[in-house]
């Protein structure tokens, strides 16, 4: 640790910390092309998905992806009810494990290519570049006085940003409503207030996060960079400056010898290309989103000075250390314990969810025992318990359900309102039907620790759902 030196106090110490503007220079290369391609794909998926139709019959929504419609989630042929929300949990768990897996293999590819913050920031920078020119022109424009030229360029940029922001919010609400009718209602002023509120909120967040806050979101707001250090290791492929090859750095004149010096000509191309405003040559750092644009920038320079490309490349810390020590680099180790653990976890959870999805029930039985009174004794001495029976039919068609009660001899079972002893009921489709079940058992057949098994059987398919439920009676020893 170096001792902190007191810095001289300034008179006009500001009350806030000013952001250093970052003006990344446009680079060309395979990573830049890939990033643009991926951005196009990601935006197409985001804007397009809600418009895909899926026929589910006359009484169900025909949107392929729809969230919270009557509390249900629709994913193509899959319909998830609120009580099956563990599938959503499963998807979230799979997503985070997927992130862990790719991070331990290739570092922060999520941050660099797929994160909405990256995609939209990249889009916003492209708009900025379109109106204000590349890095140098932008820096010059920022410093220039407010002429008409500057005003219209800035105004146009912010207008297009706001338009994109509104479209971003606009697309999100389509995931929660029937997209075509909502789009019509939205522009005719008849959409629900929540739709306008959420479009407004997302317009604001998109505009501020991608337009004005940008790299500060990753550095200050996002927890992912902080978790990062625990997920990556010396074997992971990260965007790495190969200092073993680059140092000692320094300017290089044509025809000078390359002996005794590194390949880095200190041209700053990697720094000016960086959307995070950092210097990759300082090593792995929290701010780096591993977008690989510095690789493109550096490769371009290396070709120009006639040195091999890959001074900055996807590489592991271990290999850089090995080469620096004069040893040959290792091959990329795909099968490491953590990679295998993540892969196994992902396959296991996927298999579990698929199994659950394919074998899940078309109806559900929920039995709630009366708590007050937990039992009554009838005038003939029998013990009576009351139960609330809920039958959930997840299909549109009605079902015929037979209820069976086993577990205690001599139980007299009836459903209130039905013929005594008739336990065959028809339940309507898409909903919950409630019954009240009364069970009477002779006093000498129970001892206070009894349990019943109540089974609901679909009389057509034979599908069953069972509940175990206590039968209360005065405790006898």
């Amino acid at each position, binding site marked *: 640790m170096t001792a902190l030196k*007191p810095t001289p106090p300034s008179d006009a110490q500001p009350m806030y910390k000013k*952001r250093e503007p970052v003006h990344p220079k446009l680079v060309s290369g395979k990573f830049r092309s890939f990033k643009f391609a991926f951005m196009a794909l990601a935006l197409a998926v985001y804007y397009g998905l809600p418009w895909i139709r899926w026929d589910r019959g006359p009484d169900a929504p025909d949107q392929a992806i729809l969230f919270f419609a009557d509390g249900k989630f629709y994913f193509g042929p899959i319909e998830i009810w609120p009580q099956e929300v563990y599938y959503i949990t499963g998807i979230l768990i799979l997503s985070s494990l997927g992130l862990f897996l790719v991070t331990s293999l290739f570092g922060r590819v999520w941050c660099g290519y797929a994160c909405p913050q990256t995609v939209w920031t990249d889009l916003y920078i492209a708009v900025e570049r379109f109106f204000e020119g590349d890095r140098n022109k932008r820096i010059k424009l920022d410093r220039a006085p407010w002429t008409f030229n500057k005003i219209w360029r800035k105004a146009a940029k912010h207008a297009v940003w706001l338009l994109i922001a509104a479209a971003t919010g606009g697309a999100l609400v389509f995931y929660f409503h029937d997209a075509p009718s909502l789009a019509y209602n939205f522009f005719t002023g008849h959409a629900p207030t929540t739709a306008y509120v959420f479009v407004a909120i997302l317009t604001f967040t998109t505009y501020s996060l991608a337009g004005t806050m940008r790299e500060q979101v990753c550095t200050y707001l996002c927890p992912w960079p902080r978790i990062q250090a625990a997920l990556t290791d010396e074997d992971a492929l990260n965007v790495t400056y190969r200092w073993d090859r680059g140092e000692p750095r320094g300017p290089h004149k044509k025809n000078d010898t390359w002996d005794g010096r590194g390949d880095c000509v200190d041209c700053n191309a990697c720094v000016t290309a960086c959307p995070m405003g950092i210097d990759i040559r300082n090593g792995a750092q929290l701010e780096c989103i591993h977008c690989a644009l510095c690789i493109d920038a550096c490769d371009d320079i290396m070709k120009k000075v006639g040195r091999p490309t890959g001074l900055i490349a996807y590489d592991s810390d271990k290999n850089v250390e090995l080469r620096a020590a004069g040893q040959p680099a290792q091959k990329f180790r795909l099968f490491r314990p953590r990679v295998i653990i993540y892969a196994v976890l992902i396959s296991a959870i996927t298999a579990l969810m698929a199994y659950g999805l394919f074998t899940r029930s078309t109806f559900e039985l929920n039995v709630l025992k009366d708590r007050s009174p937990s039992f009554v*004794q009838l005038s003939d*001495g029998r013990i009576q318990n009351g139960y609330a029976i809920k039958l959930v039919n997840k299909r549109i068609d009605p079902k015929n359900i037979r209820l069976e009660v086993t577990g205690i001899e001599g139980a007299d079972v009836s459903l209130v*309102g039905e013929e005594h002893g008739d336990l065959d009921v028809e339940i309507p489709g898409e909903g919950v039907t409630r019954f009240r079940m009364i069970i009477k058992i002779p006093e000498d057949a129970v001892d206070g620790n009894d349990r019943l098994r109540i089974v609901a059987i679909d009389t057509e398919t034979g599908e069953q759902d069972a509940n175990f439920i206590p039968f209360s009676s005065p405790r006898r020893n």
Partner: protein
Amino acid sequence: MSEHDKDIDAATGVETTGHEWDGIKELNNPLPRWWLYIFYICIAWAVVYWIFMPAWPALPGMGTNTPGIRNHSDRALVAESIDALRSARAENGAALIEASVEDILADQDLRQFAMAAGESAFGDNCATCHGAGGRGAPGYPTLADDVWLWGGGLDEIQHTITYGVRQENMESRFSMMPAFGRDQVLSAEEITNVAHYVRTLSGLEEASDASIAGQEVFEWNCVACHGEAGTGDQFQGAPNLTDRDWLYGSDMATVQATIYNPRNSAMPAWGERLDETTVKALAVYVYALSGSEG
């Protein structure tokens, strides 16, 4: 600020706030700019809020507060949603009035609606005495079992709820057990004997000299209402004395006290307080609690 002497922390070079606690000083580090902007936005938002929403206490003669141009009122919104709820219930509610209680119980949809409405009405109006789920309490009949003072059929329950017990209206359930002790109809010994006899009816005690003596008292004074065998009479609300169910308690002292000075407890006529839909829903719910007419 600038005329003050600045207190600069030596280790970091950052100005301190000048506050000191046991030698510990607080650094005055700058706020991030976005944070500051959010603060300004909040202030601007407050001004917008004043314009649109009720906010400031009003000047005299302008009501309680500035209304705001949206004329927002939480009270009006609540009234609106209660109206919406009423109209949403109107269809099923109207069906409840049309249908007889038997029809309501037999129809799956109406039954579910009546059970839900009845459950909430029961919790608001009945559970105070009869207990949650009609579990009962000393003096307040258990509604979840098969013992009924005034009859456990749907129509009988509906009648009892509508007109109450021992109320002044003509339809009310009404009967009055004489105060055999207080009015000096029976002597203390006779009361003790008949109490012993009553307890033998449901097997609470063995026959004894006292109970045999009490049987004669019973035949002279009690059979008119409770019946020769003591099985009671639902037309008069006379409890069955041979079953295991005791409204006030089955111990000797309680039985004696009841004969000496009966309680003759009452229930309000709910038809005067609740609408017909609610009373019908309550009848169905109370019937369903026990599921049997006894």
